[in-house]
C-alpha cells in the first residue's frame, strides 16, 4: 500500500539555518497523522514545502503517486490538498459566508461549467451557499455567517479556516496547530470534528504541540527534530520513545497550558 502523501528527502535551508534536512514522511489514506517536534524543528516549513509556499532545495513531494514538488499553492489546493495556517489567514473584512464562497469558487462545487460564466453573477449560487452553511453548522459558527470575519474570536477564526478549507472538499487537510491558543472546551469541538471527518474518509496531517490532542486523535505520529524525522509510529509507542522524550517532551509541559 502506497501512501496518499509522501515527501522524500526534503531539504531546505534559509541562509545558514537548515530548516529541513533529508526529511521523509508518509501519510496513509484515511488516517490522521500527527507531526510533532520542538519549536523550530521544521514542521511548518515542511507544510510550506508540501503546499507550494516554499521551494525545497532538494527532495520530492508525491501526492497520490504524482509528483507535486514546486507546484504553485493554487495548483496544490486545486489538486486536493487543503491547509490552515498557524496564524489563521481568513479575510477579516469579508463576512464569514463570503470567506466560505471565496474558497468555493474555483475548485469546489462552483467551478463546474462556470469558468466562463457571467462574472457579474451574484457571488455564490444557492448550492454553494447551502454547502457553506452546512459546513459552518458543522463547525458551530453558523450563527456568525453574516458577521465580518474580523469580529470572530481567535478560536472561531480557526474553525472558520477549517470550514473554508473543507468547502473545496480536499482529499487531505493539513492543519497547522489547530488547538494552539484555544480554550480547552473548544479544543474538544475541533478534535471531535476532525475525528468525524476522518470517519467519513478524510485524511489529515496535523502539526500540534498539545500532546493530549495529538495522542488522543492521531493514528500515526512522526517526530521532527532539527529538520529530520527522528521517530515515527503509533502514538502509544512514540509516547515512550526515549528519543522523543529527549527531543520534545522535555519542553512539552509549557505548551500544554492553554493561552488566554
Amino acid at each position, binding site marked *: 500500500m502506497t501512501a496518499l502523501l509522501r515527501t522524500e528527502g526534503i531539504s531546505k535551508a534559509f541562509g545558514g539555518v537548515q530548516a529541513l534536512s533529508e526529511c521523509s514522511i508518509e501519510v496513509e489514506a484515511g488516517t490522521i497523522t500527527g507531526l510533532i517536534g520542538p519549536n523550530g524543528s521544521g514542521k511548518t516549513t515542511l507544510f510550506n514545502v508540501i503546499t*507550494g509556499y516554499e521551494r525545497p532545495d532538494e527532495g520530492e513531494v508525491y501526492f497520490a503517486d504524482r509528483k507535486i514538488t514546486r507546484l504553485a499553492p493554487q495548483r496544490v489546493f486545486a489538486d486536493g490538498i487543503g491547509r490552515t495556517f498557524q496564524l489563521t489567514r481568513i*479575510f477579516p473584512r469579508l463576512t464569514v459566508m*463570503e470567506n466560505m464562497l*471565496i*474558497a468555493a469558487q474555483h475548485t469546489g462545487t462552483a467551478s463546474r461549467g462556470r469558468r466562463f460564466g457571467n462574472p*457579474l453573477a451574484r457571488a455564490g449560487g444557492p448550492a454553494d451557499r447551502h454547502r457553506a452553511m452546512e459546513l459552518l*453548522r458543522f463547525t458551530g459558527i453558523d*450563527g456568525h455567517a*453574516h458577521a465580518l470575519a474580523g469580529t470572530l474570536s481567535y478560536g472561531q477564526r480557526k474553525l472558520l479556516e477549517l470550514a473554508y478549507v473543507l468547502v473545496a472538499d480536499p482529499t487531505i487537510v493539513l492543519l497547522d496547530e489547530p488547538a494552539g491558543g484555544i480554550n480547552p472546551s473548544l479544543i474538544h469541538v475541533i478534535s471531535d470534528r476532525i475525528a468525524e471527518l476522518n470517519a467519513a474518509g478524510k485524511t489529515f496531517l496535523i502539526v500540534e504541540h498539545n500532546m493530549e490532542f495529538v495522542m488522543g486523535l492521531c493514528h500515526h505520529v512522526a517526530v521532527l527534530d532539527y529538520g529530520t524525522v527522528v521517530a515515527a509510529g503509533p502514538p502509544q509507542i512514540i509516547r515512550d520513545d526515549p528519543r522523543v522524550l529527549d527531543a520534545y517532551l522535555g519542553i512539552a509541559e509549557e505548551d500544554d497550558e492553554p493561552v488566554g
Partner: protein
Amino acid sequence: MSDSTSPRRSAAAAGRRAELAGPAAVPGVLGGPGTRAGLLALALAAFVAFGVAFTNQLVLTIGFLTALYICCAVAWNLFSGYSGYISLGHAVFFGSGAYAAGIVCEHLQVTGNAIFALLPLAGAVAAVIAVPFGLVALRVRRHTFVVITIAIFFIFQLMAFDLNTLTNGTIGLDAPFLVWGPVAFDQRFYYIALALAVVTVGISWLVKGSRFGLQLRAIRDDEDRAASLGVRAMPVKLTAFVISGGLTGIAGAVWFYFIGQVFPQSGFDPIFDLTVALIAFLGGLGTISGPVIGAVIIMPAEQYLTSSINDSYLSQILLGVLFLAVVLFLPNGLVPAVASRVRSWLGTGTAAAAAVPGVAQPVAAAKGAQE
C-alpha cells in the same frame, strides 16, 4: 445567574428581527432593503429636482462638478476601494479621455451634438491605456504601487506637453462650441453628468455583489491567500482597473466639453487624484454610497472655498488639511462610522450579526465556551 440569561434572550429577539428583515439586511450599511430603496429613490429625486430648481449658473456648475466627481470617485473606488490598491494615477484616465475627445474633434472636424457620440471612444481609449498601465503597476503592492501610479501619471502629463502634433502642447485643445443657451448649457451638462454618475453607481453596485467583486475584496484582505484558494489575482485586478479607468475617461471627456478646453496641467492634474481619493476616504472606502456622499460634501465646499477665498493655493492647503483630518479621525470614512452609530442606537449591532434566521444551535455549549 439571572444575568447570564438576559443576553441570550436579547440575542434570540434580535434573531427574530433578523428573520423578519431577511438575511440581506444584516451586512447592509443603512438598514434593510426597503429603507435603502427608499433612501435611494429620495436621493435620486433630489438630484433630478436640483437641475430644475436652480437656474443660477454658478449653482448649476457646482452641481455639474459634484455629479462628475461622484462618477470619478465611484469609479476610483470600484478599483481602489474594493481591491485596496490605492491609485494616485487616475488623472491619466481623466486626461486621456479629455484628450481623446479633443484630438478626434479637432482632426475629424466633429461638431455640435455629435461630439457626445465620442464619449464611448474616450472611455475605450482610457480603458486601453489602463491595460499596460495595470500590467506594470499591479505587479507591486501598497506604497510601491502608489508611487508607480504617480510616476506613470507624470509620464502622461509630460507626453501631453511634448506630443505637439496630437496635443498642441502648452496651447492645449479647444472643445467644439455647443449652441445651447447659457442656462440650458449648464442644465444639460448637469443631467449628462448625473446620468453618468447613476450608471457608474449601478456598475459599482453590480460589481460589489458579484463573484468578481468578492474576489477583489478578498485580494484586498489577503492577496496571497486568495490566490492560493484559486483566485486569479492579476486578471481580476486588471479587469477592475480597466473598468475604473474607462469610466474615468468618459468623465474626462464630459468635463472637457463643459470647460471648453484642455491643457496638460488641467487634464492631467495631480489635484484630481487627491480630490477623488479624499472623496472616497471621507465617504468610506469600499462602500457604494461612500464616494457619493463624500463628493456631495467635498465638491460644493471646494468650489465655495475657491470662489470666496480667491486664492487657489489656500484652498488646496485646506484640502490637504481635510485629508489629514479624515485619515486621523475617520479612518473608515463617514458611511461605516454612521452605520455603526445607527446600529448601536438600534441595539441590533452584534446581536443581529450573531443570530441568523432558521438555524438550530447544535453546539450551543461550545459557543457558550467561546463567549
